[in-house]
């Protein structure tokens, strides 16, 4: 019988270490991938991933069993990512500027050369943070739009509006790649 994330978290709180292992296994890919695309830096994503789960361990006693674990863990991760990006704000903009002035021909040319997966990966990094996080949490983390609204503390319509814009831009990037 497959236990829910919430049941696993409660089991860990009771002292079952294996329940934590199962949670880590379930969330390692969606959470790490989301963080990786959110911050655009693998080393920083690793730090944030570790910090997220350390906070899960540290605050296990305060976990509200009536709340979805996915929403809770993504909220922790998202807040950490936003703080980290805020601290690195200037550098991040500089990095993006460098990318935009790619001597090889700019992002459009780079997208044309890349495979489709690579294209959408690149297009994702070019999305504004608000649109990117909504897309990643919905697409990779599997959170519903309502849950994303809770995690980001935004109205549902705002979340849907951001998703709509993200899909529109990604679709345009894919179309450009296909034409190239």
């Amino acid at each position, binding site marked *: 019988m497959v236990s829910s994330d919430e049941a696993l978290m409660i089991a860990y709180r009771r002292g079952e*270490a294996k329940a934590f292992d199962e949670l880590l296994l379930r969330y390692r*890919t969606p959470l790490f*991938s989301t963080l990786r695309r959110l911050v655009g830096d693998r080393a920083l994503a690793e730090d944030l991933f570790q910090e997220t789960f*350390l906070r899960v361990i540290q605050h296990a006693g305060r976990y509200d069993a009536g709340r979805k674990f996915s929403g809770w863990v993504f909220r922790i991760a998202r807040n950490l990512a936003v703080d980290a990006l805020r601290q690195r704000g200037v550098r991040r903009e500089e990095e993006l500027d460098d990318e935009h002035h790619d001597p090889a021909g700019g992002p459009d040319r780079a997208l044309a050369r890349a495979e489709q997966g690579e294209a959408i990966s690149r297009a994702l990094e070019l999305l504004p943070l608000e649109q990117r996080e909504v897309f990643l949490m919905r697409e*990779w983390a599997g959170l519903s739009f309502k849950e994303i609204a809770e995690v980001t503390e935004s109205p549902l319509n705002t979340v849907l509006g951001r*998703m709509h814009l993200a*899909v529109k831009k990604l*679709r345009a990037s*894919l179309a450009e790649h296909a034409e190239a």
Partner: protein
Amino acid sequence: MDKEPSPACRKFRRERLLLYAYGELPAGEAEVIRLHLAGCASCRAEVEAIAAVRAAASAPGLQENPPSALEARLRIAAREALSARPGLRERIPGWLRQPRFWYAAVAAAVVVMVAGLGYRSWESHRARPEDFTSDGLAALVEEVDSWDSPPLAFLELEPATPLFEEVEQEPEVISPGDEAAAEPWYWPTPESGLDKIERGLEELDASVRYL
């Protein structure tokens, strides 16, 4: 690519179509959208575009895992946190773990128990106002009157011989003007139940006044 939506289907754009494409609409609303899509090329193209982006985003190799060493460190941290968690004994406040607290608690319990028993005893023996109503008094008289016989019957004792009996006097010659002397002479007999109660009430009254 982006066909202009007709005014009739404008309400389905954005929010509704996204929720439909991700399967987050209630069944009834989803059915309405499905019927609409059958006749609306613009909305159908929108839903197909969302599906295409979803397919591209789920391409293999796009998602990544954290390093194994990082996961191992987290597993160790999770176990260390569990073993470092205070046990039940440590979670009890220090003052509760002091023997002096438990001695005091036991002493207090004994005092409360003794006081409770004393109160119950006093409560069962004290005179109540209803004892002095006519019915209560009659019941009391009856009870007190019955004190002599049942214990005696139980003990199979002979009824007590009166200490003082009527003494038959020698007929006296009553002189004229001395008729009082002709009254039969009785020695005091044991108190009746009513007498005892009356005496008890008098004593109680005296006690109350004294207090």
